[in-house]
């Protein structure tokens, strides 16, 4: 027998009865909420050409790759935003209206596996394409908050940042490409010590250098934006802060502002973001549960320039957070057990079919049994009710 016959591949897992139902119920709740907000569910292939994902700085490095019979390189999808952008730019090319799309999908990335970080994982998410204003971003953020609440989380926090703020600072500092890359790398890795070294070596004007050094600590509420607007000299940075303020004002109308805070050093490892971006966290979980933002340049790659914004959340991470925060999953639905005596199999089958037609969840005995045997089976399996056909 091969060593691997009883194992699952690295970074994958089985989901057993109970948990599988609970997860499906949570996904259903989330997808119904997306529908309620006017988002239409779509599906794309599980694997795509590597070229579709290449560019946008997304390295195929973390992807599972393989060949088709014509020797094209294929990869299992690593996120859903790229395939949906491709789909909208091709199949929905002529449609100029604002599109609200949602999905639930299995994604695959080569990760160092931990609880809640597996190589195969499930995401639910939405994309809003064709809308450029703050209202679209506010809708996306408000829906993100509602989604986490719908999933059953109570204690969580969403932090907002802005790529234009960071890009504006980099522009104002007139950095070389290499220096800009180093700075972004330090921001992604949250390496404040490294950032300080890069900034000192780059000889940036003092006032700007100070902002760079503080960048990873620029956290706070709405007041932070006003403070920073007074401090930044660049129009581009000022506009980014103003955009965040507008989004925040609109988020108030949704009544979600108490979940929001700002982190002006926030960047994400997917580097297609161009404007507002955000992540959501909860206690007991070492990484973000939900993340998203504006990515206005992606569609251009597929030949249909179009502003876009959206988010994705990790179902596995939410399930794990709920478990760690001590919340119980919904119980199994009631089960009715139908058993039958010797020679009564056909009657048993008919009884079970009739009950199922009435909407009952029925487990039918696999063989004729005595009433005592039935009682034992009911006790052993915790069936809620039973029916015995004599």
């Amino acid at each position: 027998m091969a060593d691997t016959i009883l194992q699952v591949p690295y970074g994958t897992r089985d989901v057993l009865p109970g948990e599988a139902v609970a997860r499906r119920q949570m996904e259903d709740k989330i997808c119904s909420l997306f529908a309620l907000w006017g988002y239409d569910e779509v599906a794309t292939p599980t694997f795509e050409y590597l070229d579709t994902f290449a560019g946008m700085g997304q390295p195929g490095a973390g992807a599972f790759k393989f060949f088709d019979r014509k020797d094209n390189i294929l990869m299992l999808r690593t996120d859903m935003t790229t395939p949906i952008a491709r789909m909208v730019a091709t199949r929905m090319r002529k449609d100029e209206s604002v599109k609200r799309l949602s999905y639930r999908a299995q994604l695959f990335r080569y990760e160092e596996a931990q609880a809640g970080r597996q190589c195969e994982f499930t995401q639910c998410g939405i994309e809003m394409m064709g809308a450029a204003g703050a209202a679209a971003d506010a809708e996306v953020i408000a829906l993100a908050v509602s989604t986490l609440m719908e999933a059953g989380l109570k204690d969580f926090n969403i932090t907002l940042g802005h790529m234009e703020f960071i890009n504006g600072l980099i522009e104002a500092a007139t950095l070389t490409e290499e220096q800009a890359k180093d700075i972004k790398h330090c921001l992604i890795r949250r390496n404040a010590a490294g950032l300080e070294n890069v900034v000192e070596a780059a000889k940036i004007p003092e006032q700007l250098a100070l902002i760079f050094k503080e960048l990873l600590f620029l956290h706070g509420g709405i007041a932070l934006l006003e403070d920073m607007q007074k401090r930044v000299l660049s129009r581009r940075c000022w506009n980014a802060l103003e955009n965040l303020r507008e989004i925040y004002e609109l988020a108030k109308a949704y009544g979600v502002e108490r979940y929001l805070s700002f982190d002006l050093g926030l960047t994400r490892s997917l580097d297609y973001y161009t404007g507002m971006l955000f992540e959501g966290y909860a206690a007991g979980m070492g990484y973000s549960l939900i993340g998203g933002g504006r990515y206005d340049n992606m569609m251009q790659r597929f030949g249909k320039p179009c502003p876009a914004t959206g988010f994705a959340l990790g179902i596995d991470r939410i399930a794990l957070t709920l478990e760690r925060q001590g919340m119980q999953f919904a119980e199994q639905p009631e089960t009715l057990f139908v058993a039958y005596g010797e020679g009564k199999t056909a009657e048993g089958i008919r009884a079970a079919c009739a009950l199922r037609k009435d909407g009952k969840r029925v487990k039918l005995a696999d063989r004729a049994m005595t009433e005592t045997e039935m009682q034992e089976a009911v006790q052993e399996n915790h069936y809620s009710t039973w029916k015995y056909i004599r």
Partner: protein
Amino acid sequence: MEEYITIALPKGKLFKRSLDLLGKVGYSAEGVSENSRKLVIANEETKVRFIITKTVDLPTYVEYGAADIGIIGKDVLLEEQKDVYELLDLGFGKCRLMMAVPEAKKRPELKDYAHLRVATKYPRCAREYFDKLGIQMEIVKLNGSIELGPLIGLSELIVDIVETGTTIKENKLMEVDSIFTSTARLIANPVSFKLKFERLHKLVVDLRAVLAAEKGDKKAK
């Protein structure tokens, strides 16, 4: 009620200075010592908890959020590559990773060392270094007494951490290249950093002030 902040401290040469620095900014607890039998030591008043870990394990504790923050050498961070935030360069514990050969076996250029055996406690850093040089090496992972490697014919070279270089010289080894310098860093768990931001930010600001004052003192002397 305010939540605890859990701090991981590494056993070994960074321990004493780390404890001393944290004490100066009000993070202390009774009975924290390197050889403490107690695994978790709490200060209920200031809501601080200390755990003392093996050096290489420290980033793991912080990555998993078992500790909110920790103090650890950059060398360990580079070798372990964990997802943790690096908040502050604390400046102490200075050392460097370097490559050394027995004096008698020195070669004219770095690339002349290709395809030899290298003993090291830092296989990942060593591999990256040789990859950059474009040479292939056979890496022999050891957990200590690296300089023994060339003495008894286990390896031709070593890649190891040195502070002063005395041990290297005593063993008739010669440094041929310096790979990087390392100092102690304050690291944080990403989510702790978000959720306990106020206290952690204050800690960073206070530590910066202490370090700056000490630097000033040294200069004045």
